Each structure stands twice: as C-alpha cells, then as structure tokens.
C-alpha cells in the first residue's frame, strides 16, 4: 500500500510466556482496542516498525504529488485545474499529518526526509509510474486514491493513537480525491471515441500497478504476523486487494470500459471477483529502483529540498533574530 513490505523490527511473535510484564500489559491493551499513545511504554520493535511504516506512508503522500502535479498546468479546464490543485494540496497535508504522527515516536521530520533522500526509506511503488496524459490523472484519482482509501479506512483502527487519528483525518479528505478522479475519467469514457480510447488505455496501464499497492500476498510475508498482532496492520494485503477489486469492477462496468484483465470473473462460490495477480517480478524491480520514474521522482524531491534550503534557513534566522530582539527589549 502506501506502506508496502514494511519489515517488522522483530523475528516472529513472542509467545506470551516469554513476554515481560510490561510487554504483556502492552499486548493486553492492544487486544482490548485501547490505543497506544506517544508517552506510553511500548516495545522498541513496535516503535521502530511504526516509524518505518508511517514514514513510508508520509513519503508516499509527498512523492505522490509529483505525477499529478505534472498535469496541473495542462488541465483541460479552469475548474479541473482548481480541483487538481486542491487535491494535490491535500496530499501535502496528508504528508504533514503523517510526519507529525511519526515525530511523536522520537524521530524528526527532517531525519525522515534525509533517510528518503539517501535511499534508506521508500515510498509506494505506484508513484514510479508515469502520468502520460489527462486520462491518467482521472485514473490516478479513481484507482490509486481508491486503493489508498481501502487501506486507510482499515488503518483508522490501528493501535497507535496518532497514526489512527491521522488516518481518520485523511479518510475524510480522500473520498473527494477518488470522486474527482472518477468524474474526470467518466467525462472521457463518455466523450469522443479518442477520449474513450485514452480512458481505456489509462485503465489498462494503471490497473495492475494499483493492485500492487497492497503489496505481495501475505503468504510470502514473514513480517505481517507481528504487525497484525500489534494492530499496526489491520487487514491482510490479499483481503484489502480483494476488497478493492470487488468495489472497482462495477465502477468499470458503469463506464462501459473493457475490463483490464481477461480473468476477472464473478465467483459465485466465493462471493468475490476472481482476477489475475499482478506481475510480482515487475513490482520487486520497481521497488529496487528500476521503475519507469524512480530516478526522476527522487531527483525532483531532492531538488525541491535543496532549492528550498535558503528559504527555510532564512525564515528561521529571521525568527531567531526577532526573538532575540524581543528578549533584549524586555
């Protein structure tokens, strides 16, 4: 998802008998759905895993502005431009909420940003795919934010208080994102034949990358078990992916677009749609840094950070000078 393949900072789940008294009390709180708050005692591994997960989630919000920002100046109407601008601005806010949540765990935002820029932290694989045309912007809002919502709604119940509160805030804003995307793609799907062709092409290209957002099957993940026990993760990757597929197929059908995968079929027995797995080797390759846009995304982020340094430093120097003058006057 926005946080994919988070390594749990521990090896497997500790059996209850081996837990210290503090650990047991901690696990009891989680089992009883009592939120863990910043100054509460927590296992070091819980803290470290959360920093990784929330940090990666925050980075994804911020880097996720790039593929959409790419089209702000070329939006087809002034209204679409204002909407996209508002949407991208929201994503900056989401990054902020999440960095703030991570900071309650004893890491600073600048430290996290440095780790990203040094390549020691990641962001979601989805943002390493390009947005080639306006239809892609519709598809991103619809599918990428749609997938993000599925994940983030589940995470509202996560055990760490500040993370859960950030998710609640974010979810309130996300449905605007998905709806404006669907509205944009709908205009194209019911537009000229060429517009419809572009809508179909956007769906075809972004479908599998959107499915990859949930991460590989849990069967392959050794880290999921502990994260689930800690309620850092609330639902399995496969469960969330299925939920996304089930909710999205009727939306595709409404648009009268072709399904992006010939194996999509309603399975009466399961009560879910069957579908093909994404190309996991491609996913791992993108994660490793070899996706179509990895290099550009990091270049843009680092440039934004470096080019903004004089502004950050200047404002802080001014604030310090003002504060010193005030003290001297008193």
């Amino acid at each position, binding site marked *: 998802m926005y946080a994919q393949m988070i390594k749990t900072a521990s090896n497997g789940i500790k059996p209850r008998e081996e837990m210290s008294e503090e650990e047991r009390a901690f696990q009891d709180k989680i089992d009883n759905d009592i939120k863990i*708050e910043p*100054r*509460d*005692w927590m296992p070091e591994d819980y803290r470290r895993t959360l920093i990784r997960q929330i940090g990666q989630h925050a980075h994804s919000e911020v880097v996720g502005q790039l593929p959409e920002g790419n089209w702000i100046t070329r939006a087809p109407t002034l209204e679409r431009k204002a909407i996209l601008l*508002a949407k991208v*601005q*929201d994503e900056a*806010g989401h990054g*902020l*909420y999440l960095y*703030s949540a991570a*900071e309650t765990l004893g890491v*600073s*935002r*600048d430290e996290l940003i440095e780790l990203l820029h040094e390549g020691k932290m990641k962001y979601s694989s989805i943002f390493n795919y390009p947005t080639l045309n306006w239809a892609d912007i519709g598809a991103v809002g619809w599918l990428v934010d749609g997938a993000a919502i599925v994940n983030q709604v589940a995470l509202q119940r996560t055990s760490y208080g500040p993370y859960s*509160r*950030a998710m609640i*805030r974010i979810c309130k*804003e996300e449905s605007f994102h998905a709806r404006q995307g669907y509205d944009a793609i709908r205009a194209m799907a019911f537009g000229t034949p060429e517009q419809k062709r572009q809508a179909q092409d956007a769906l075809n290209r972004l479908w599998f990358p959107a499915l990859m957002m949930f991460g590989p099957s849990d069967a392959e993940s050794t880290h999921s078990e502990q994260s689930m026990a800690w309620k850092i993760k609330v639902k399995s990757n496969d469960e969330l992916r299925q939920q996304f597929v089930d909710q999205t197929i009727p939306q595709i059908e409404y648009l009268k677009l072709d399904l992006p995968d010939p194996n999509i079929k309603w399975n009466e027995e399961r009560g879910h749609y069957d579908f093909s797995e994404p190309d996991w080797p491609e996913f791992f390759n993108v994660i490793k840094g070899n996706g179509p846009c990895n290099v550009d995304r990091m270049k843009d982020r680092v440039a934004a950070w470096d080019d903004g340094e004089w502004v*950050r*430093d200047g*404002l*802080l120097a*001014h*604030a310090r000078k*003002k*504060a010193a003058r005030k003290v001297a006057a008193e």
Partner: protein
Amino acid sequence: MKNEWPLWEIFIRGQHGLSHRHVGSLHAPDAEMAVKNARDVYTRRNEGVSIWVVEAKHIAASAPSEKGPLFEPSESKIYRHPTFYDIPDEVGHM
C-alpha cells in the same frame, strides 16, 4: 546548529462556538508563520473561525504512569452524575 523549524501544536475553534480543539501539529519558524500554515493545512474546508498555536515544547502534560492516581478516584463517585438520582415521575422533567 540544526536548522529544523520548531514544532507547533494547533488548536482550532469551529463554527459553532465550542472551545478551541487540538487538531494536529506542524513545523514553522515562528508563531506568525505557524498561524499561516495552520490556516492552510487545517482550515481548508471551513473547519474553523479561530486558530491558536503553541510551540510544542511549552506544553506540559500528565504522565501516563499517573493515570491511575489522577483519574481513577472519579470512577467511584457516581453521585456526581444526574442519573444517580431518581426523580418521581409526578415531578416531571428536571
């Protein structure tokens, strides 16, 4: 010196005359910028009519370990709630 902007806690008063409520935090070089940033981040959808900002380091908080001594005593004082009292039906609403 590390040039990281300090952290501010943000409180917003909503439309309906309730108290300012904590909504989150942000970084800003000074109070004035903190208010401006808070406006951009936390009031984009009519969430508020007034903003307070407090530098996070100035907030003093109760310790989690004091939870028991601080908050448990009130649990047993059920006579502090109106529902503790039976008012005869004949008396009507009170």
